[in-house]
């Protein structure tokens, strides 16, 4: 095992009464990285976090922490701390005692506790709030206390379970930047769970996209966004046009009756593929200056850009552009080779069905939660 693999999950499966919440997961997390588990509700991301924290035991497979197998190690003996979704702060204690809770249990000296709590409260911008009660704090402040309470124990890993989901949009954006800053300041490995793709792309070093208990793709935010591995990832991350196509040969793909130059290789000749075209990668140009033509059918102002739908005979293309084009205008659409991303077709079931299936999974997981309680 390589020394910089802090956490390693090997063939981890978790079943709840026959339903697989996690299906043969293999994942390693490097020391000091900010890793995000991203996926729709019920994809297994929270189960994975709970397995790392020690609240849930895998049905099969092994969990390694710092090279040691920890399957049977209870949470209070793991050097892992969690920031819970609804913070789970202790309302019978004030801010100081909440943050000092873990240190007191470890019998750290009084002066040392004082020093560490003060410095961590400074890190989370809550200096001077020591004597406040939890219900005297706003949502954002409670969030910071929860982070401080976990971080002050100097864990090897900090697990964060959708910590920003209860905050309003503006505050959430600020906290994303804050969290990244804190992670860089303390240098602790963060494992972050979210269903918000924007959050994942903004903060992470590595993003793990999950669906139906399986890892769909692991990569940097850039990889995940620009080179989605399959239709599910492409649809879940950002907006995209996904079109059925055939890979004619290396660097040449055909869809909707025309062949296009592309930058992808490594497919069988005439292999059926999914073609992803991000709406911001295509451009609307004057009629005749590109081979693909169509009619503007819909224009929506989005603030920074317009979301324009172009009907090109057989299919509609979503285009994001800063230039306004009126509805009804005949235009050409320019698709340059590097705007086209070719993906293998999923082997088994259609992934769009999989997205619907996650709704069911969500219901099942909620049922489990209720039963656990």
């Amino acid at each position: 095992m390589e020394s910089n693999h802090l956490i390693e999950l090997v063939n981890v499966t978790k079943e709840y009464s026959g339903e697989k919440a996690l299906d043969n997961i293999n994942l390693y997390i490097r020391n000091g990285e900010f890793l995000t588990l991203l996926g729709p509700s019920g994809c297994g991301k929270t189960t994975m976090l709970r397995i790392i924290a020690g609240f849930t035991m895998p049905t099969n497979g092994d969990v390694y922490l710092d090279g040691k197998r920890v399957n049977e190690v209870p949470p209070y003996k793991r050097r892992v701390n969690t920031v819970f979704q609804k913070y789970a702060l202790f309302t019978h204690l004030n801010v100081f005692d909440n943050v000092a809770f873990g240190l007191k249990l470890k019998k750290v000296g009084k002066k040392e506790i004082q020093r560490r709590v003060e410095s961590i409260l400074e890190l989370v911008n809550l200096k001077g709030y020591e004597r406040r009660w939890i219900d005297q704090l706003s949502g954002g402040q409670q969030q910071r206390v929860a982070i401080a309470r976990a971080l002050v124990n100097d864990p090897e890993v900090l697990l964060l379970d959708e910590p920003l989901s209860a905050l309003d949009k503006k505050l959430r954006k600020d906290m994303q930047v804050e969290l990244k800053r804190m992670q860089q300041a303390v240098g602790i490995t963060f494992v972050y769970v979210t269903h918000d793709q924007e959050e994942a792309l903004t903060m992470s070093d590595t993003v793990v996209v999950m669906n139906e208990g399986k890892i769909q793709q692991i990569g940097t935010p850039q990889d995940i966004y620009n080179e989605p591995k399959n239709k599910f990832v492409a649809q879940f991350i950002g907006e995209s046009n996904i079109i059925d196509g055939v890979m004619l040969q290396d660097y040449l793909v055909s869809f909707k009756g025309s062949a296009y130059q592309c930058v992808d290789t490594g497919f069988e000749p005439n292999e059926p593929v999914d073609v992803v075209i991000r709406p911001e990668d295509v451009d609307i140009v004057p009629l005749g200056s590109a081979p693909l033509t169509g009619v503007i059918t819909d224009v929506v102002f989005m603030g920074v850009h317009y979301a324009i739908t172009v009907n090109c005979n057989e299919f509609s293309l979503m285009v994001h552009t800063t230039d306004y084009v009126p509805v009804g205008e005949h235009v050409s659409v320019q698709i340059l080779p590097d705007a086209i991303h070719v993906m293998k077709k999923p082997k088994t079931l259609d992934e769009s069905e999989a997205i619907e299936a996650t709704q069911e999974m969500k219901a099942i997981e909620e049922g489990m939660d209720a039963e656990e309680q």
Partner: protein
Amino acid sequence: MVKRLANFLKHSYLGLVLLFMYAPIAILILFSFTDSRTMSKWQGWSLGAYEKLFADGAVWVAVKNSVSIALISATVATIIGTFAAIGIYSMKKRRRMVIENITQLPMVNPDLVTGISFMLLFTAIGFTSGYLRMLIAHITFNLPYVIFSVMPRLRQSSNRLYEAALDLGCTPMKALTKVVIPDIMPGIISGFILAFTLSIDDFVISWFAAEGVQNISIYVYSIARRGIPSHINALSALMFVVVAALLVIVNLRSIKQEREAEAQANKLRSK
């Protein structure tokens, strides 16, 4: 006519309700300040009843029994009941529902049945200590009420609190004492108060379960057969005043807490 009746009710309805509720107690307190054999005639102001009360040794033995049994049984029932509630709460859904219902059944069981069954049980096993018989009976009938008042608080409390405590290094037992129990403390306290009140109030179960020991209600019952002596009026009046005072203190405290919380909330909002 109807309108006038409606108007009259509108202004006096609450007053009438309160009058019906408090008139008997008012009469009792009034008659504790006169010294008469019968309550049919007013014989002038006197503190004689109170003098007699403080001179009567048997009353104070009964009061001591009532208070000590109420305190001990409420405490023991609160401890056992709280842990039982936590245990029941952490069970799987179906088992939890079954057990919860079984534990709540004794609350609707008639006191008479409970009392007689205690008497039979104690006689059958040859348990003779009157005081302990009463104590054990009180602990037992208090238990469901404690579970009943702790349970809703546990439901409000989040499982995540327990997990957060484990996460920060608590063993399961420490997580319970340091986090879960403080969180459900309001439920535990109301369970204790309920148990204390029920115990000090009880007559039927005590009467059958215990033998040769008198609490206040048994004592009053045993002498009331020969007409109620005036010092019992005095005792009842004193008991009412003590309970009323406790109630006022508890309510004032919660009003004060609410006001503070409101003030803090306002302060937060204005920021």
